[in-house]
């Protein structure tokens, strides 16, 4: 155990990055909130806000420990080890870059928070608030933490796991698998259990406030710099690479979505631009430190097209993934995760500090960069394992909640608006309120 030498620069960046990622969840609340009808915007936002509340507390108690504590069976970490965030810097993984362990743990908290919140878009407008809270508790504990541990905490899908041993370490720089594939697969399981909104596919359910959607997309992008460039846990050339890839892939995805719409629908929409931004951010997340500008452009463009086409599928297959968590996060998460297998490269300082942990080499060059197909196979296996795990466990959690607490508000409450039914509020001032009693 070596002496811990604080690096104030890296720490400054990680404090900033943590703050940026925390802002993403309210950003998501606007991205999602603008997309629902005016009578359910508050509930939509509240699902994000309460995720912050619940997961923030749990993470500090046992979440961090259960993710980054000593490995238990490749699936989780020891929940008691850092319970209550009692961590000494000298006793932490995060040393390499001179960032206090507590700061690294803070940064990680924000990832757990937003992953839970992401799922809420799938079940807009219709679920009991209490059930959602219980779901958040169960899901972060039984799904997020295991997946994060498996990938980043020394578990099965990480640099010390069997895939890494047999093939090469799957690359997930900032959470393509842990966050986006995970949330997307969970969303799919959840909507299958929860069911459709009353009027799905027959009644108009257009976004009630598109500028809010764009505000959300902007705050997400801004925060995502913390998410991706922060995942280096240092302020260096690699975080610089992550930063520019986060911009370039996102630009490409936005343009690709707009072009897809222009061809298909005849017009490029602002909702398309905002959605393309998110798709690009999702796709570049796992790859941000491992590809060059060309890789970024292709990954972004592919994600933009793929998600633009995927969001319509719910009408075809008849599942009501209301705000397209599957179409955007699962699909673009897969695009990014798989394309790493083609485009990964260590050239130009792109190797990640993170990937270098535990082994000197956390991945191979991609198929197009002379590394053969091995990395591609690793990526696909890791993604599939995560999808199956997330889908199955989420499905079970959702079923249990269905038969115990129940998921749905009444049909009448859906018609009147869930904001009123669940929160006793309406988002915007109208005519005709009369004060009668004041406590």
């Amino acid at each position, binding site marked *: 155990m070596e002496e811990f030498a604080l690096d104030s620069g890296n720490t400054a960046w990680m404090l900033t990055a943590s703050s940026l990622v925390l802002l993403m969840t309210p950003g998501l609340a606007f991205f999602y909130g603008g997309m629902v009808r005016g009578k359910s915007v508050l509930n939509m936002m509240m699902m994000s806000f309460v995720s912050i509340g619940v997961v923030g507390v749990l993470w500090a108690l046992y979440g961090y420990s259960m993710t980054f504590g000593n490995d238990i069976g490749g699936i989780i970490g020891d929940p008691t080890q850092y319970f209550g965030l009692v961590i000494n810097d000298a006793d932490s993984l995060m040393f390499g870059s001179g960032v206090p362990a507590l700061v690294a743990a803070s940064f990680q908290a924000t990832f757990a928070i937003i992953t839970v919140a992401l799922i809420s878009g799938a079940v807009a407008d219709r679920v009991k608030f209490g059930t959602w809270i219980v779901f958040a508790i169960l899901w972060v504990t039984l799904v997020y933490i295991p997946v994060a541990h498996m990938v980043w905490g020394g578990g099965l899908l990480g640099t010390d796991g069997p895939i890494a041993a047999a093939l090469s370490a799957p690359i997930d720089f900032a959470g393509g698998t842990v966050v986006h594939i995970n949330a997307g697969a969970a969303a799919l399981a959840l909507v299958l259990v929860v069911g459709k909104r009353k009027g799905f596919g027959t009644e108009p359910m257009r976004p009630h406030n598109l500028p809010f959607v764009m505000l959300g997309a902007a705050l997400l992008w801004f925060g995502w710099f913390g998410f991706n460039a922060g995942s280096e846990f240092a302020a260096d050339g690699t975080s610089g690479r992550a930063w520019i890839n986060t911009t370039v892939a996102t630009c490409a995805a936005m343009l690709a979505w707009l072009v897809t719409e222009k061809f298909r629908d005849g017009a490029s929409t602002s909702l398309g631009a905002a959605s393309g931004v998110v798709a690009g951010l999702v796709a570049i997340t796992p790859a941000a430190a491992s590809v060059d500008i060309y890789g970024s452009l292709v990954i972004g463009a592919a994600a933009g097209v793929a998600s633009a086409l995927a969001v319509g599928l719910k009408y075809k297959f008849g599942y009501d993934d209301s705000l397209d968590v599957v179409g955007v996060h699962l699909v673009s998460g897969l695009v990014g995760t798989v394309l790493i297998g083609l485009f990964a490269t260590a050239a130009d300082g792109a190797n990640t500090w993170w990937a270098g942990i535990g082994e000197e080499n956390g991945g191979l060059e991609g198929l197009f960069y002379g590394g053969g197909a091995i990395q591609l196979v690793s990526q696909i296996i890791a993604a599939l394992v995560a999808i199956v795990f997330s889908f199955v466990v989420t499905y079970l959690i959702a079923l249990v909640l269905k038969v115990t607490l129940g998921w749905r508000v009444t049909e009448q409450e859906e018609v009147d608006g869930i904001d*009123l039914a669940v929160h*006793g*509020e309406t988002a915007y001032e109208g005519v*005709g*309120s*009369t004060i*009668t*009693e*004041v*406590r």
Partner: protein
Amino acid sequence: MKLVTAILQPHRLDDVKSALESAGVRGMTVSEASGYGRQKGHTEVYRGAEYTVDLVPKVRIEVLVSDEDAGPVSEAIVGAAQTGKIGDGKVWTVSVDDVARVRTGEHGDAAL
């Protein structure tokens, strides 16, 4: 000519529109309204201050029709809008002295 005005539940608008189309109505005017009646409103609480909102959202439909269509049209509206729950609304008919189509300046039944 007659003016048939209806105050309805907003979520019945689409069905009423279809029913009117079937009844041969070629035009109408829609606007937002709030209703007060037997249907109860709701309570909202903001930082401990309780508000009773006793106006509920409604939609208003106005259809100009010829004298002989007035009856059938208002029946069609009642038929399509009815849910049987309190708050379904009202339909009423008023006599109109004259109607003009702005585009052409036509008057009377031709203007409908």
